[in-house]
């Protein structure tokens, strides 16, 4: 019925739609038609993308925006991003609810001897960063390990820094365990435990 009315008036779908929302059924057709024109004009007055060229540009933007909205979270599922759930709308996911413990160890070399020591994270960084290390954020891991590599060699030169994460899943079972290391010679973050 609504569609028939639109066709009968020969107006744009927008103007017809605008009228049909509120127009009382008893109003004479001429009055309704006049109102339709007014409503249409009012609608278009606020439309900055009314002309076809602006609308084409707007459509390009819309397509890019939607592609971004769809692709960004897909990176998590298709890109094997593991613990890094940013930009993927995984609030309160099972990964977010993992309970993890982080340890960072460094290997120091002095006079040909190598020894290992734990990094006191509480003294090293603000406590919120420890939370992020426990969530396995690669950017934070890389920065912290590089920073440890760059520390003054008062007790020996740091040759390698290890990152170790162990997690418990929400159901109490063993969760993922993550190991990274950085050789201070090249300062590249690598997976697994490396030999110093």
């Amino acid at each position, binding site marked *: 019925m609504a569609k028939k009315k639109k066709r009968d008036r020969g107006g744009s779908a927008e103007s017809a739609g*605008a009228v049909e929302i509120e127009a009382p059924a008893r109003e004479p057709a001429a009055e309704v038609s006049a109102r339709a024109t007014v409503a249409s004009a009012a609608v278009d007055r606020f439309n*900055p993308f009314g002309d076809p060229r602006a609308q084409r540009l707007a459509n390009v*933007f819309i397509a890019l925006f939607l592609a971004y909205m769809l692709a960004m979270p897909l990176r998590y599922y298709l890109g094997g991003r593991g613990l890094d759930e940013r930009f993927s709308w995984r609030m309160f996911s099972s990964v977010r609810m993992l309970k993890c413990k982080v340890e960072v160890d460094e290997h120091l070399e002095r006079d040909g001897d190598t020894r290992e020591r734990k990094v006191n994270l509480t003294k*090293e960084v603000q406590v919120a960063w420890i939370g*992020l290390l426990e969530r396995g954020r690669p950017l934070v891991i890389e920065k912290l390990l590089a920073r440890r590599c760059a520390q003054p060699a008062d007790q020996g030169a740091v040759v390698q820094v290890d990152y170790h994460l162990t997690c418990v899943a929400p159901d109490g079972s063993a969760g993922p365990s993550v190991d990274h290391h950085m050789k201070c010679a090249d300062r590249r973050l690598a997976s697994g435990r490396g030999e110093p």
Partner: protein
Amino acid sequence: MNELFHGPHGASRSYLFQKTFLLLLALDAWALMIGHAGRYGAAGFNAAHFDWLDAIQPLPTNASYIGVLLLGGLLSLTLMITGISRLLMAVLLVLYTYAWAMSLLDSYQHHYFVSITLACMVFFPKLSARDVHPTEIEGGKKRAARELERAHGIEQRGWVFCALAAVILAIYAAVDSKDRVFTLFFACAGALAACVVWVAPKVAAQPVMARAFGWNLLGAAVCIVYLYTALAKTDPTWTAGHTIQRIGSVKNDLAWAVEWAEAFGLTAQQFWSLFATVVIPQELFMAAAYVCAVVRDREPSKLLDAICWIAVGLGIALHVGAEAMHLEIGWFSHYMLLFAATYLLPLSAVDKLAIVLTWPGRFLLQRVDAWERQAPGKVPAVLTVLGSAGAVLAAAYFVDLPGALATGAIAAMALIAIAGVCLARGIDPRRWGMATACAAGLMWIAIAASPVRWDYYRFRAGDLDKRGELEAALEAYEHGERYAPPGETRKPKIDAIRRKLEQRAR
């Protein structure tokens, strides 16, 4: 695509959303986000959300983070008062996005969502209060006496509705809802609904329609967000009910429901599994409802109305429920309730709700118009802008946070630059000046009335103390004492640090 993204919507929807969202954003930045600023730059460590940003930005500090938030809030509130300027909305988008992107310390996904929303808002229709609710009494000379009387009646009822709604919203904001989140929400929402039905006047026979793709695109974006949140919950650990029990205080809050389910023969694990799994179709339905909401004003139908009404209920269950579970998600629930109110409620109701903003908006517009007419010329405009710049600096000084004064200076200079551009184009800039001064005043009120400065100084001091930076910790604790709420003094900590410092000196 044209019909879906360029179709019309009720002007009051985007108007109400835009104004309230910008207000929420400013208050969120000032009264909540600043509290965490003490983490920024601590121990000289930072990692941004993006490698390229790390490469180009200096190390963020508490002052730079606070500065970006204060400036973003000021711009947001100024835009709320003056109306949309696409260029300045884009600047706000950049400022806000930089606030969270500068450091992984802010990993709240809802801050990313706010950026997505701001990106769509750049393309919202530019609407004034008069556009949404055209003034009834203006041009009254030509009207019949009865019609004029009716218009006066509408005007008066509108003001009564504004006053009642303001009281209800103030009560909702002021009452501590800790253990009665649903009760407070339903009491306030019920009272507001009663006011909409019985007090708010119907302004026009048919609500004004507007068209700009930003509104429709935002609806589609919310749909995608809900789709992915549902997808994230399809893993076996979630559907078995293990994950949901770890969220906030859910396990304790729903202990009664578990007992109730057990009385009906379900095991606790079955209950949690069912409870968790039900969230998935709920979120999928919400996703579909937002698409329906976008087309609803153009193609009204009972089916779309029914879908949107069900989504209102589900939205309340999800987002007021999130508040009841004490999730640490800032004001995300309130942002989402604003989405639900403006997208999912019927247009006639939203049009009446918008009176809360359009009536004061029209009143202010009338006063400013009259002022500009009565005192034309550049001199009063320049004096107003300079006075406003001074007010911004004064407010920034009294905010008493690192980076505030520099931010005030930047805002004052930006205001003067905008005024210069306006004058060069023959536009009177005094409403920009007044709006910025009002925003600065509200910034000071929001910060002074909230515990944000206390949070900032005590969190910072505690962290410095932990890392052995005792002098700086003492300074922060002592500075924060002036903002300590009754009974929360850190005097014992201050004394302990002083003793440690004395021992160290010996």
